[in-house]
């Protein structure tokens, strides 16, 4: 017997009260854990995907859509821009790096992205099997694409029109898989990568092998979808966006600004859930307090008896505090487990939707704080009951009954 087992026995002796306190506390903790995990992982992923990209240039439209399509591959692109723009930015002294991307097709729900090898270098991606493409119509699969489709080097498939690959198939122009990338933890894991030329060729094949003049015309009209830019100097941040946005066909969007805006919008929902979780935790604290306080009346003889058996008042204080802390610790543990289980479930669902992956297996530093706060809540809720137990007047209590 010790203080913990004795307090646990009192908690077991009133199962309904204990269950209610545990339920409220664990739901509150689980909600916060889920928020911390999802928001934290999402922010981490989004900032990793946008690292080193200062500006996204594309067709006019919504700047947020441009960012979502160009960096995160989570929205439809705003349109295409002429290939000539790439050359113009490559010559621009304010720009250190230009990564043009050609979007438009998909395969089994994954996007096919036409890009240069520099796109892979930007994210530090290297082939885990096979090699990178060096001719049109060769593709490299992101790690998750390979894992989820079970397709490897040597396979051949046809992309389909539309970024999710639900449209009409480009059967006449199949792709050959020449490599699979190692996992990068970035957006590349969920992409099928090929050269920009491949994307052009797929769409030109549609028009059939017509005469040379037509082909020339098509080649002159070649377009890309977005350009990812890296500034050469801080001066660029002041000048480039304004310059670009004043042109009639182009639009520039800053990932830092747009993602911050996105999180401000999402943040309202997050804050509302956080407030709800705090309400749950406060309710749990009240429930612990009321349970301990009302139980004091029926326990006054037990407490007095413990004093006759030689317990100092401090021991009774400790017993009640321990009950609050044991409740809080159990509630926290259940809440943490529940939060992680929910995050895993959500992660599995998001993965089936080919959305941003969320895992319940990762831990975050905030959870330690959360556990400390939850334990503190249990302790504070037990303080007044514990003080009453400390002040038990043994002689009078026993004389009454």
């Amino acid at each position, binding site marked *: *017997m*010790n203080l913990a087992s*004795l307090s646990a*026995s*009192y908690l*077991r*002796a009133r199962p309904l009260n204990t269950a209610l306190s545990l339920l409220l506390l664990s739901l509150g903790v689980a909600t916060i854990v889920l928020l911390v995990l999802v928001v934290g992982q999402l922010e981490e992923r989004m900032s990793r995907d946008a690292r080193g990209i200062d500006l996204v240039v594309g067709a006019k439209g919504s700047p947020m859509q441009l960012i979502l399509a160009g960096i995160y591959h989570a929205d439809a692109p705003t349109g295409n821009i002429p290939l000539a723009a790439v050359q113009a930015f490559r010559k621009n002294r304010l720009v250190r790096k230009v990564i043009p991307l050609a979007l438009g097709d998909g395969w089994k729900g994954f996007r096919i992205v036409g890009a240069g090898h520099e796109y892979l270098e930007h994210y530090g991606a290297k082939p885990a099997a096979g090699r990178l493409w060096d001719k049109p119509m060769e593709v490299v699969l992101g790690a998750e694409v390979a894992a989820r489709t079970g397709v490897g080097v040597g396979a051949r498939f046809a992309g389909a029109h539309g970024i999710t690959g639900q449209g009409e198939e480009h059967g006449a122009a199949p792709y050959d898989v020449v490599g699979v990338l190692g996992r990068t933890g970035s957006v590349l894991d969920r992409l099928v990568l090929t050269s920009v030329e491949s994307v052009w060729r797929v769409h030109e094949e549609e028009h059939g092998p017509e005469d040379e003049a037509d082909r020339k015309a098509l080649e002159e009209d070649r377009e890309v979808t977005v350009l990812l830019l890296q500034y050469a100097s801080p001066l660029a941040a002041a000048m480039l966006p304004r310059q670009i946005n004043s042109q009639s066909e182009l639009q520039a969007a800053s990932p830092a600004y747009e993602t911050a805006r996105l999180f401000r919008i999402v943040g309202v929902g997050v804050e509302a859930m956080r407030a709800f979780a705090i309400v749950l935790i406060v309710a749990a604290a009240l429930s612990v307090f009321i349970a301990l306080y009302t139980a004091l009346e029926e326990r006054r*003889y*037990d407490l*007095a*008896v*413990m*004093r*006759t*058996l*030689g*317990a*100092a*008042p*401090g*021991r009774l204080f400790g017993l009640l505090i321990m009950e609050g802390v044991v409740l809080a610790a159990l509630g926290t543990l259940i809440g943490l487990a529940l939060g992680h289980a929910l995050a895993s479930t959500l992660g599995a669902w998001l993965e089936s939707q080919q959305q941003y992956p969320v895992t319940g297996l990762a831990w975050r530093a905030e959870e330690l704080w959360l556990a400390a706060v939850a334990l503190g809540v249990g302790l504070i809720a037990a303080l007044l009951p514990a003080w009453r137990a400390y002040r038990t007047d*043994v*002689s009078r209590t*026993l*004389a009454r*009954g």
Partner: protein
Amino acid sequence: MICVRGLAHRYASTDVLRLPEWRVAQGERWLVLGPSGCGKTTLLHVIAGLVRPTEGEVSVSATDLRKLHGAQLDRWRGATVGIVLQALHLVRHLTVRDNLRLAQYMARAPQDDARIADVLAALGVADKASRRPPDLSEGERQRVAIARAVVNRPKLLLADEPTANLDDAAAAGAVDLLVGQAERHGATLVVATHDARVKQKFERRLELSA
């Protein structure tokens, strides 16, 4: 063993107990008699160190209780005194064994299951060790309460109205158990009662008047 001098205790300026002098030698068996409200329970609480008297000297087992403060007094009580309370007050949700373990734990004595089994066997309730108090008969509960009081081998065994709710046979049995356990542990026994049936078992009596 017990030495009381000039003892007076008041609640809200009303005398509830007055005892000019009382001496008890080690191993003696005493009966404290008197009508309800004469201060029997208060006297037991005073010599158990549960309440500090308004006036007077109390020393028990060569310890001047006035010199013990706070937790020292609790520790002394746990090591020296075993108490059988009138309403028994076993902890309802703990098994009989755990009620005795609680006594060892609260007195900071080693938790000794062999000792617990031994004491329960001596009181004839060994087979109830895993039961909880509400499942026991009144007589069995009384035996468990006595077991809890003696499990730490107290030098002083106190009992407050141990026969109050018992019929003649059970009352005689309870007193025999108390006396027997006091003898077995070489403890001084003080029983407070207003029950006339108990008188013949004790040679030494302290009469308190209201």
